[in-house]
C-alpha cells in the first residue's frame, strides 16, 4: 500500500492541452474520486497515473518510488476499465489468472489468489463461465477480481459502475465501499456522478478543464466550495447564483445589495478581509436553503413557473422580475401552486459569496456543519 504524489502533471494530445499542472497528494489507503464533467480530463489523469498515457510533463510517485517513467506493469497499479475489458474468449478463472501465469507466479499461488478474490467477490461458482455468460454486475466483479489478484498498491477504477442499471449501481456502490474497507488499499475512482463520489470517497478531486478545481472531503465541497465551478457542480438541483454589489462593512462582514434585492444581505466572513473589488459579485444559495416567506422580510419576489412534486420534497421553479430563474426546494407538502406569486428569503448564513473571478470568500459555518466537516477530515486522515 502506498500514497500517491503527483507534481505539476501536464498532458496534451497534439496541440490540445488536457491536463495543465495537476498537483495532488493522495494518502495511503484513501478512497479518492476524480469528479468532473465529460472532457474535464479525469480519465486522462487516471490513465496517466496508470502509465497508459505518456505524460508531457511532471512526475508521479507511488509511495517512495518515482513511477513516472515506468511501464504500466511495473507500477504496482491495477486498473478496472469502464467496459470491464474482460478477455471474451477466456473463462473467468483464466481472466483472473492470465496476467499472473505469464509473470511466473507459481501455480499453487495463482490458485490461492484466484480463489480468495473469487470468495471476496462471491464469484466462486462462476469461474468456469465466459464473460458472455455473465450479467453486467457479475462481469464487473470479475473485472475487479482481476485487479485484486494482482495485489497492487493502488487501484484505479474508471467509471466502473456506469454500465450498470440504477439498482445494481447502488448495490455495487455499497460493495465497493466495503471492499475498500476490507482491502485497505488506496483507490482512485473516476466518475461523473456526484452521488457516487460523495458517498464512496474519503476525499474528492473536482476537475475542470484540466485543472483541479478543488480537492477536499465531500462535505467540504458541498458546504465550502472554493469557486463557482465547484459550487455549481456539486449539489442537485444546482445552486442558485445571483449577481450583487458588495460593500465592505467591517473586516468580517460584507453588505450585499442589488437593484432586484429588497434590503441587503449581510455576509459573514470567517477570515478578515480589508477590501473587496468594485465589480459585481455573485451570491450562491442552494435551493434547499431558499425560504418561501411573506412579502415583508423577503429579498426577492417572483412567479412560480413549475412545481415538481417528488414526495419528500417539492422543487419550485420561480421566474424573477429580471427574467432570471431560481429553484427552491420545499417540503413535499408545501401548498405552493403554479402561477402563484411567491416571496423568497436568502438566509445570510446559507449564502456563498464569490468574487468577480469566481473565487469564494471564506464563509462562516455554523458549529454543527463545521464539526461534521472536521469529523470527515479526521476520518480521512485516520486511514493514513
Amino acid at each position, binding site marked *: 500500500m502506498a500514497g500517491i504524489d503527483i507534481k505539476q502533471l501536464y498532458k496534451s494530445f497534439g496541440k490540445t492541452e488536457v491536463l495543465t499542472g495537476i498537483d495532488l497528494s493522495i494518502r495511503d489507503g484513501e478512497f479518492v474520486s476524480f469528479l468532473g464533467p465529460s472532457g474535464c480530463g479525469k480519465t486522462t489523469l487516471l490513465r496517466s497515473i*496508470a502509465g*497508459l498515457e505518456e505524460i508531457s510533463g511532471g512526475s508521479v510517485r507511488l509511495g517512495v518510488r518515482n513511477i513516472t517513467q515506468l*511501464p*504500466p*506493469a*511495473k507500477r504496482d*497499479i*491495477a*486498473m478496472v*476499465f469502464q*467496459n470491464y*475489458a474482460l*478477455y*471474451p*474468449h477466456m473463462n473467468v478463472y483464466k481472466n483472473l489468472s*492470465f*496476467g*499472473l501465469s*505469464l*509473470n511466473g507466479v507459481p501455480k499453487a499461488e495463482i490458485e490461492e489468489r484466484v480463489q480468495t478474490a473469487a470468495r471476496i467477490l462471491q464469484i466462486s461458482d462462476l469461474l468456469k*463461465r*465466459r464473460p*458472455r*455468460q*455473465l*450479467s453486467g454486475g*457479475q462481469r464487473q466483479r470479475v473485472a475487479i477480481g*482481476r485487479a485484486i489478484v*494482482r495485489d497492487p498498491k493502488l487501484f484505479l477504477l474508471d467509471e466502473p459502475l456506469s454500465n450498470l442499471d440504477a439498482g445494481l449501481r447502488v448495490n455495487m456502490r455499497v460493495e465497493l465501499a466495503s471492499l475498500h474497507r476490507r482491502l485497505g488499499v488506496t483507490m482512485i475512482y473516476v466518475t461523473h456522478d456526484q452521488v457516487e463520489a460523495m458517498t464512496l470517497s474519503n476525499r474528492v478531486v473536482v476537475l475542470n478543464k484540466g485543472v483541479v478545481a478543488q480537492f477536499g472531503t465531500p462535505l467540504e465541497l458541498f458546504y465550502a466550495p472554493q469557486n463557482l465551478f465547484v459550487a455549481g457542480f456539486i449539489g442537485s438541483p444546482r445552486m442558485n447564483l445571483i449577481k450583487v454589489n458588495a460593500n465592505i462593512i467591517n473586516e468580517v462582514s460584507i453588505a450585499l445589495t442589488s437593484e432586484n434585492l429588497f434590503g441587503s444581505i449581510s455576509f459573514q466572513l470567517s477570515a478578515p478581509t480589508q477590501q473587496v473589488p468594485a465589480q459585481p459579485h455573485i451570491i450562491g444559495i442552494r435551493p434547499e436553503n431558499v425560504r418561501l416567506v411573506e412579502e415583508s422580510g423577503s429579498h426577492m419576489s417572483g412567479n412560480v413557473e413549475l412545481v415538481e412534486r417528488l414526495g419528500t420534497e417539492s422543487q419550485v421553479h420561480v421566474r424573477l422580475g429580471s427574467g432570471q430563474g431560481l429553484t427552491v426546494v420545499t417540503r413535499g407538502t408545501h401548498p405552493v401552486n403554479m402561477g402563484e406569486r411567491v416571496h423568497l428569503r436568502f438566509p445570510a448564513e446559507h449564502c456563498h459569496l464569490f468574487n468577480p473571478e469566481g473565487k469564494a470568500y471564506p464563509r462562516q459555518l455554523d458549529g454543527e456543519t463545521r464539526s461534521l466537516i472536521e469529523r470527515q477530515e479526521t476520518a480521512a486522515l485516520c486511514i493514513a
Partner: protein
Amino acid sequence: MSTLVVQDDVAEERHRFIEKLTPYLFISPWILGFLFFTLGPLIFSFVMGFYDWPVVGERTFVGLQNYEVMLTEDPLFWDSLWVTVKFALFFVPFNVVLGLLLAVLLNQKVIGTGVFRTIFYLPSVISGVALVTIWAWIYSHEYGILNFLLGLAGIEGPNWLGDPNWSLLAIVIASLWGLGGTMLILLTGLQSIPKELYEAARMSGVPGWARLVYITIPMLSPMLLFTLITSIISAFQQLTIALLLTKGGPLESTYFFAMYVYDNAFMYFEMGFAAANSWVMFLIILILSMLVLKSSSAWVYYEGEMNNSEAADD
C-alpha cells in the same frame, strides 16, 4: 354489391402476391446467374463425368471409367496433384501468416500507415496477366531484377523459372504477391478488437508476444478461419500464374492439378474426363474445408456464440 366484394378480394390477393414476389425480383439477377453459371454447369459437369465426351463426335456413357483411368492409369493425375499439394503446403501457411504479420504491422499507429496499406493492397488490384508479366521480368535468369539484386549481394541467383528445384518456389512467391486481400480482412478484424483488452494486458504485465498469441489471434480466429479456407481453395485452383509463367514446366515441376484439368479439356478435348477431374478437385477442396471447419470448434472463438444452457441466469 357482392361482385364488388369478390373483385376486392381478387385485387387484394393479387396485391399480396406481388408484394411477396417483389424481393425475389430484386435478387433475381443473382439467382439467375447462380442457376445458369454455377449450379447448372456444376450438375452438367457431374453428368459429363460419366461420359466419354469429345467436343465433336459421338458421346458415350462409360460409367465410372473416367474416374478409374484417372486414379489408376494416368500418372499425370497423381503428379499434378502432388505438385498442387506441395504448392498448398507452402502457399497456405505463408499467405495466412504473412497476411497476419502485415496486418499487425499496418495496424500500428505510425506515420504513413495509409500509404503502406495502399502499397500492400495494390498488387491485389492488378490483373493476373499483368502481374505475371511483371514476375516474368523479375525472375528472368539473365536480365531479371531479382538475380541482379542477388548479384549485388554476391549471390549467383538460380534460374528461377528454368530450374525444377526453384520453379515451384518462384510460383509460391509470385502468388503471395496477392496477399493484400488476406491482409485487408485481417486488418479489419484487428481494428474491431477493443483496445482496452490490450491495455488491461499491459497493466498486468503481459508481454507483447503473449498479447499476440493469447489475445489477438483468438479474437481474430473467425477471420483466420475464413482466410485459411479461402487460401486452401485458391491454392488448389492455382492456374493462371503457372500457366503464363512456366506453362507447367520445367519437367512438369509446376504442372498444377488445375492445369491438368485444363489440358484434358482444351488441349485433348476430353470433356468428360476433364469434368471427372474437376469433380475430384471439388471433393478434395470440400473435404479439406470440412476438416478445417471441424477443427475450428477447438480454436475459433465467436463473440456471439452462446448455448442456451450456458446463458446467464440473471
